[in-house]
C-alpha cells in the first residue's frame, strides 16, 4: 500500500472544500471509489486518500468546474477507455505493440497520429493473437477489418472474438460474451478471446 496518505479532515482543510462538495464529487464519480481508504485510528474509522492523486484531482476539478459540468468532468476522469484516445508515439514508447502490428494497422487504415479507442483495442487484440503464433499476418488483416466493421455494434457490452480455421481458411466471428458455440467437425476453433479481458489487460498496461 501507499504510505503517502492524507486523512479526509486534513484534505478538506488543505483544499478548502466542504464535506458536501467532496461527497457530491464522489457521487458523480469524479473521485474513484478505491481512493477512499478506510483505516482505523484512535478516533474510530477514518477515511484516507492517496495524497498526490487526490490533491491533483481536486485541483483539476476546482479549475475545470467553472467551464465544464460535473458530468463532463466525470467522463474526463473515467477510466473507461471509450472516452480515451492515445498518441501513436506514446503507444510505441510504452512497448504495447510491436512494429509488425503497427504496420498492419497503418497499411489498412492509413497513418494516424491519434488512435481512437476502437483502433486501440483492435491493435491490442491483433498483437495478442500474433504473439501466440496461431495467426499469420494475412489473417491479421481480416481480424482488423472485422473489429473495425462490427465491434462498435456491441456498444460496450461484453463480446468474444472467435477465430476459426477450416481447411486452412480463416474466419473471425464476434459474438456476445459467454454464448455457446458449436462447430462442425472439420472446423477448428483456434482461439476464443473475451474482449473485455483484453480491455482490462490493456487498461492495466496503460495505467502503469
Amino acid at each position, binding site marked *: 500500500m501507499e504510505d503517502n496518505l492524507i486523512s*479526509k*479532515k486534513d484534505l478538506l*482543510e488543505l483544499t478548502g472544500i*466542504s*464535506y*458536501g462538495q*467532496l*461527497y*457530491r464529487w*464522489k*457521487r458523480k464519480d469524479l473521485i474513484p471509489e478505491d481512493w477512499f481508504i478506510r483505516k482505523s485510528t484512535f*478516533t*474510530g*474509522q477514518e477515511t484516507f486518500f492517496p495524497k498526490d492523486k487526490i490533491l491533483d484531482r481536486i485541483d483539476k476539478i476546482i479549475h475545470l468546474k467553472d467551464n465544464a459540468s460535473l458530468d463532463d468532468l466525470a467522463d474526463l476522469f473515467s477510466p473507461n477507455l471509450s472516452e480515451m484516445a492515445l498518441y501513436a508515439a506514446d503507444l510505441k514508447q510504452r512497448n504495447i505493440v510491436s512494429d509488425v502490428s503497427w504496420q498492419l494497422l497503418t497499411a489498412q487504415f492509413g497513418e494516424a497520429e491519434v488512435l481512437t479507442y476502437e483502433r486501440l483495442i483492435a491493435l491490442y487484440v491483433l498483437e495478442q493473437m500474433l504473439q501466440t503464433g496461431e495467426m499469420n499476418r494475412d489473417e491479421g488483416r481480416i481480424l482488423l477489418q472485422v473489429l473495425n466493421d462490427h465491434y462498435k455494434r456491441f456498444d460496450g457490452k461484453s463480446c468474444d472474438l472467435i477465430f476459426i480455421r477450416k481447411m486452412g481458411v480463416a474466419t473471425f466471428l464476434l459474438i456476445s460474451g459467454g454464448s455457446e458455440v458449436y462447430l462442425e467437425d472439420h472446423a477448428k476453433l483456434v482461439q476464443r478471446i473475451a474482449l473485455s479481458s483484453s480491455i482490462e489487460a490493456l487498461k492495466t498496461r496503460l495505467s502503469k
Partner: protein
Amino acid sequence: MYDYPSGDIQINGIASSNGGTFRRVTVDGMGTIHGDLTCMDFACNGTCKVDGSLRAERASIDGISKIKGAAHADQLRIDGKVTINGKLTGEEFQVNGHLKIHGDCEAERFESNGIFVIQGMLNAGMIEVAAHGPCSAQEIGGEQITIRHAGSQFMTKLLGTFMNTHVTATTIEGDYISLEHTTAKVVRGGRINIGPDCIIERVEYKDELHIHPSSIVKYHTQI
C-alpha cells in the same frame, strides 16, 4: 437518455421473465426476472425478485422486492420491503417502508420515513430521516443531514422499551447536521446541532455546535 423499446412486461399472478430492456414493468403477484432489467417504469405490488441488476427511471415498490445486483433509479419510492445486494444509486429516494442495502447508497436526495439498514455508506446531498425503528448505516455523508425521531415522544419511548429506535452510524459527516435519537462514534461538520437523546463519542465542528442537555457527547472540539 435511453431509447426504450415499446415492449412491456406485465405479471399478474405467478410468472417469470428474462431480463432485457422494456418500457413498463409491472408485477402484481409473484414475479421473477432472470437477468438484468432496464426499464422506464418499474412497479412492484407483490413479490418480485430480480436475479440481476435493475435500472429504472422511476421505480415504485409496494410489495417485497429482492434485487441481486446493483440498482439504479432516478426516482425511487419504497412503501414495502426492499433488499438490494449491490449498491443503490439514483437521484431522489423516498423510503416509507424497509430498505436493506448490502452496498452503498448514493442519491441527491434521500428521505426516509421508515427503516433502513445500509451496510455501506449513505451518501446524499440532502438526507432527511424520520426514524420509525432501528436504522443504521456504516457511514453517513452529505451536505445537509437531518435525523429526527418519528411520531410523538410518548410513542417513541414506548417503542423504545421494545426496540431500539436510534439511528446508528459509525461516522456522520456533513456541512449542516442536525441529529436526534442518534448513536454515532464520530460526528464531523460545519454547523452541528445535537438534539435530544443522542449518544456520541466525538464531535468535531467548524462553525457552530449546540448540544441538547439530554444528549451525551463524550468529547467535542472545534477544528
